[in-house]
């Protein structure tokens, strides 16, 4: 399992989030289903009726991954949305976002 997706899923579970971020990261639903299966098998999460929740070992794993990737503070519980990252600009450049690529709510 790719750790970037694992960390994202563990964060989602910790914050009761939906599958949106994983879809946005390019995963198909069937791949997300495999991820869920893996983390349950590893004991990182369990199904509590109508909710999937992180177990103690899941929280430990998340902490370990945050440490491994040097994620601190907000980054420890929110992943960067890589799809919105832009190339570093020089101080003489002006960045104008492509309106067509902007999310609807930002227009």
């Amino acid at each position: 399992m790719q750790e970037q997706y694992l960390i994202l899923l563990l964060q989602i579970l910790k914050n009761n989030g939906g599958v949106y971020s994983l879809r946005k990261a390019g995963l198909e639903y069937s791949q997300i289903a495999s991820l869920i299966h893996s983390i349950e098998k590893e004991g990182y999460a369990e199904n509590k009726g109508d909710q999937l929740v992180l177990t103690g070992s899941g929280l430990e794993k998340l902490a370990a991954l945050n440490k491994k990737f040097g994620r601190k503070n907000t980054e420890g519980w929110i992943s960067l949305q890589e799809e919105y990252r832009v190339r570093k600009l020089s101080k003489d450049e002006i960045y104008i976002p492509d309106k067509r690529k902007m999310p609807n709510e930002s227009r």
Partner: protein
Amino acid sequence: MKTNISLVALEKLTEIFNKNGWSIEDHREEYDRFCQALEHFSPEQQGLIFELTREFLWVTLNKYESYLYASLFMIEKKLLVDCNKIYILPLQSYPEKRENETRNESAIFTRYLIKISHLSNNDLFRGKKICLIDSPLAIPKDINFIPAMLILVDDFIGSGETGETAVKDMCRLAGITDYNKILVVSLVAQEMGVQRLSRLGIRVFSRIIRKRGISDSYLNPERETKSRIMESIESLIKVKKKYNFGYNRTEALVAMMSRTPNNTFPVYWCENSMENGKKFIAPFSAG
């Protein structure tokens, strides 16, 4: 890419796929399409789809042969004991003019399966001449007076409308005066279709007979609640009136190989543009 699907919903769908024997590994495409369909629905609507999907029968190609044998061997021995010839043809409409004929590919395929099988080795058919034909015109003129039987085959019987037309067309073209000469065999059949044909005196043999997904499966007030939820689903995906709850309101939960009969609830096969202009992707392909 907004989605209403929760992680628990995905887990539930995975559990249903596994329970139904549809491994996600082998059915990734259907799983993804299923989820894309679920994206449009509320948790209540998703809940109904989950419940119905638990009862969904998907007959894949590898099951066809065993289902066919199981259905054929349901024919009572006494019905064939006095005949020495059996004509087998696809269950489809046979209009007066051959050019108006609509080919029922699945019925033709089912008859082909019989062609490549070894029916004569079985007790039921031993010693009888089996003639595979594709038109009632190939039936001999003296059929009413010789010890022969006719078997019409298909893979699925829904509301029984096609079955009724097929039998009537065949009798008209071949001059058959007695429905006792005819047997209908189908891999899977809806109870509703079997009853319709039985009322006409036509005997149907099918290994799997299915009830209506909501009307025969819940008692009131639950039945009314589920029907109301299904109506809201069908309104959202703009299902045509004649297909509401499946053609002739058959309420089937069946897919055969890669096609889904239109008797099945349309949410499983009907791909339409919705109110919001988005295209609805159904989990299975239409027939």
